[in-house]
């Protein structure tokens, strides 16, 4: 049996449509399951969802009714139901009568409380229509959107006002009511090209009728239609649309009948940097840039909700608006380059970074110190000077006209101005790239100076906020600290920046001087915990097993890039036959060391042969792996460390750790502690789950 639901609304934002469809799909699936509306194999049919800014659509095949189900109704206990001769008693007869069956139909069942008489009853399944009519109002009113609204005099919240609910079940209207709106057997065509009522008795008819009335319901079909039209329009020029998947997705939701327009702008605007051109096109006007090879063309592409543009009114209108915007952008560009970034830097003293953390001038000063320190740790002698210069300039574009008009150009605009001023590429690139990566998918800065500045900037923000006691939890992250911390970690990992992270934290905390309210040591612990969470998230997203990630992160954050090499070493070894025995030994060592204070090994007290052997092999292995660990070759270090297995095993087999003699006992514990510390430099193997 076929089921179709369409919620017709005023224009929803694209994110809301995606959200609404996925909730409808999940909600319906779970209702079908819990109401037993499934086929003979116990599955419900695949639910298809379609949508546009005006419609949320669900389509699926369903069982026409619930499956019948057997129910067991228990009556009196067996002892009370039958006489010793096996005849039913009054109690049993009464029970059977009350349920409308013959006493012969009674049977005895075993329950937790003993044996009882019972009857089996077949409960007839209800028709799907009846059940759907009951569940749909709640399903629709429970949909939630990032921002919700009320309208008219209804006490009901939704993404945007609902205009109509079309619902078909088995070819007929399924009547129900939600938000004071009664479901119907019709919908409406495109509000401008076909604003008429459309009746439909099946999904196919619904889809085809809408198609005739200028609505393509399938978002993927609209998307590929846009792509095809773009290709066709650009072919004669040998040009291509500069790919922007996000914009394409938004537009394929925003229109119900896409028509691609190709427009031009005067060549003279090509003097503006690419980034400025494409931002002016995209922001507010949703236009795509056109390129030929790596060259920007004086053209743009837009997606209209239209059948065609036979009089070119849409194209000309967009050209006119774009020209005015580009004219503004040129005005801003020319105004901004009148004053050098260096001169303009003084204005940063008027811009607050965060109320208690001072101005952007203060921040720039801190960034110079942090970046200089980090460049030093990375032995980037040449870059140090450049990155310090960039640190002083990177926030200056916040007071330019360009960034005031197009906030998304921050960083990029500063970089472009720095390049225009003729500053060295190590400087302008650092400014240009210092916000990267904005999301986990974004690329990290290409330059080392950019990477250093990016990490410095993000750490300054995270430490500053955590240092004021800002808490991040669940959906609450007002300053985007998670994004910043993840960005910093991503740059460190992708650019292979090898340094001690805790010491960088010390540096950042110290450049804040007395501005932070959380005590130094507490703050460091909070930061380490916070960054540990981010590292864990990144590693698990990269597909590393959670227990391997914990094994690497639990001994404490040190060198973040090394943490990545370590988890990789574990991952590379996880299928080796040597892995499991090593884990078991580590578990044994850690168990015995639990809650023991730290002791020191005294080699004079090593009296048994096996403990002397363990000590010797430990010293040799340690001497061998230390340089490997320092250079980051953890795969090799791990292979060598694993050789400690045999001596540890015979140690456990032949030596009593918990000796009565306190001195011997402590010495043996000390030896195991030394082994454990060595292992921890690669991983806490005892955390790893042995795969059964």
């Amino acid at each position, binding site marked *: 049996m076929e089921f179709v639901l369409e919620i017709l609304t005023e*224009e929803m934002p694209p994110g809301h449509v995606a959200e609404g469809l996925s909730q409808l799909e999940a909600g319906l699936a779970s209702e079908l399951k819990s109401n037993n509306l499934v086929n003979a194999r116990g599955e419900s049919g695949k639910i298809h969802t379609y949508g546009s800014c005006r419609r949320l659509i669900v389509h699926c095949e369903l069982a026409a009714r619930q499956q019948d189900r057997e129910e067991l109704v228990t009556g009196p206990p067996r002892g009370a139901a039958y006489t010793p001769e096996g005849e039913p008693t009054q109690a049993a007869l009464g029970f059977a009568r009350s349920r409308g069956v013959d006493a012969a139909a009674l049977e005895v069942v075993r329950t937790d409380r003993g044996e009882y008489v019972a009857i089996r009853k077949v409960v007839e399944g209800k028709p799907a229509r009846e059940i759907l009519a009951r569940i749909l109002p709640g399903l629709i009113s429970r949909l939630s959107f990032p921002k919700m*609204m009320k309208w*008219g005099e209804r006490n009901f919240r939704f993404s945007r006002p609902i205009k109509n609910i079309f619902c078909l079940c088995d070819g007929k209207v399924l009547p129900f009511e939600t938000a004071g709106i009664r479901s119907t057997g019709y919908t409406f065509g495109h*509000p401008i090209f076909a604003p008429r009522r459309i009746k439909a008795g099946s999904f196919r008819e619904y889809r085809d009728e809408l198609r005739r009335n200028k609505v393509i319901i399938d978002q993927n079909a609209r998307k590929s239609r846009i792509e095809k039209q773009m290709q066709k329009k650009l072919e004669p020029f040998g040009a291509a649309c500069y790919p922007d998947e996000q914009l394409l997705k938004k537009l394929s939701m925003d229109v119900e009948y896409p028509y691609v327009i190709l427009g031009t702008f005067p060549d003279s605007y090509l003097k503006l940097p690419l980034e400025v051109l494409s931002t002016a096109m995209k922001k507010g006007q949703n236009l795509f840039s056109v390129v030929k090879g790596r060259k920007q063309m004086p053209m743009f592409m837009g997606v209209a*909700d239209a059948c065609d543009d*036979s009089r070119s009114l*849409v194209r*000309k209108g967009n050209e006119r608006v774009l020209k005015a915007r580009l004219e503004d952008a040129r005005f801003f560009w020319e105004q901004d380059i009148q004053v050098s970034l260096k001169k303009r830097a003084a204005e940063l003293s*008027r811009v607050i970074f965060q109320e208690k953390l001072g*101005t952007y001038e203060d921040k720039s000063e801190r960034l110079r110190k942090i970046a200089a320190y980090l460049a030093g740790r990375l032995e980037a002698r040449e870059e140090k000077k450049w990155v310090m210069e960039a640190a002083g300039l990177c926030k200056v574009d916040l007071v330019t006209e360009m960034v005031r008009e197009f906030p998304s150009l921050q960083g990029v605009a500063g970089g472009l101005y720095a390049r225009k001023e003729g500053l060295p590429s190590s400087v302008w690139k650092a400014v240009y790239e210092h916000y990267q990566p904005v999301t986990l998918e974004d690329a990290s800065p290409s330059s080392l100076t950019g990477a250093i500045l990016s990490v410095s900037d993000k750490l300054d923000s995270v430490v500053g906020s955590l240092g004021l006691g800002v808490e991040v939890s669940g959906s609450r992250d007002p300053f985007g600290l998670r994004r910043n911390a993840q960005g910093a970690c991503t740059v460190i990992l992708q650019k292979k920046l090898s340094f001690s992270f805790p010491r960088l934290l010390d540096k950042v905390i110290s450049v804040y001087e007395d501005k932070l309210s959380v005590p130094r040591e507490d703050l460091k612990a909070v930061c380490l915990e916070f960054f540990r969470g981010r590292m864990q998230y990144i590693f698990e997203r990269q597909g590393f097993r959670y227990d391997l990630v914990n094994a690497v992160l639990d001994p404490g954050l040190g060198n973040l890039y090394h943490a990545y090499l370590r988890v990789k070493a574990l991952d590379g070894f996880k299928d080796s036959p040597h892995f499991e025995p090593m884990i078991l030994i580590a578990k044994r060592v850690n168990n015995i060391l639990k809650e023991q204070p730290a002791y020191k090994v005294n080699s004079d007290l090593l009296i048994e042969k096996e403990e002397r052997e363990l000590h010797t092999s430990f010293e040799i292995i340690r001497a061998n792996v230390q340089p490997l660990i320092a250079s980051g070759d953890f795969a090799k270090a791990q292979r060598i460390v694993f050789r400690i297995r045999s001596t540890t095993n015979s140690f456990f087999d032949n030596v009593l750790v918990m000796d009565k003699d306190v001195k011997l006992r402590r010495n043996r514990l000390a030896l195991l502690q030394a082994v454990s510390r060595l292992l921890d430099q690669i991983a806490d193997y005892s955390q790893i789950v042995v795969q059964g």
Partner: protein
Amino acid sequence: MNSVQDLIMYLNRYWAGQGCYLAPSYDLEVGAGTMTPDTFFRVLDQRPWRVGYVQPSRRPADGRYGENPNRVQKHHQYQVIMKPSPDNIQELYLKSLTGMGIDLREHDLRFDEDNWEAPTIGAWGVGWQVLLDGLEITQFTYFQQAGGIETFPVPVEITYGLERLEMFLEGKDDIYDLQWSADVTYRDLHLREEKEFSEYNFNQANVKGLQKSFAIQTREAQSLIDRDLLLPAYDACLKCSHLFNLLDSRGAISVTERVKMIAQIRDLVIQVARNYVAGEESS
């Protein structure tokens, strides 16, 4: 529509036909039609309300000395409020456009998400900017809150940008080329005004005097609130708001001061709204 005044007369007729009372423009400087009492007070209570009016809107920092073909420090809005929002409000709006002679089937009309917010009057709403071939011609908002109070029944606000719309209708690229009437151009009426006010807004306005006036008006607003003279108190708030905008365009407000001044105005407006609603409920 061959002139701005044709457009105004058309919109007046159209929205009067929808039951709107045609209000005269408010006689104080405001940044948007939303701020006048005909919108602000009327969306707060529970009575039905329909109004349409032209409101000159001043944004001192948008001045460009008459040299930019699109930006001016004073433009004109046509403001419509319908409360409760009718179910067919989008159709009514589309009809208002086709009635101007725009054949929407030859254009691209889009309702693009834009959730309006006005922190100084504690107001926000959900809605769109309406784009016609990429040009923003209208702000369309379902008010959810005003003066910090939830608005119910929900009013819908439609704000047409008159100059933008008329430029579209006349096919002009320069605002100063618009006809206000058959004989008078926008240049005749507003070029000198834009030049002189830009000079005033950016360079000449007396900062000390404005700061003093701001302090006086905030005290005035508070004392009027205390005496339950809410309409005059609200006028004082509007004056504060404009003084703030002027100081801002003079570049005389630091970031911390900005936050503080906005909070000050907002606080007064919220008191006005609360007392107004409380009074309406008890009467």
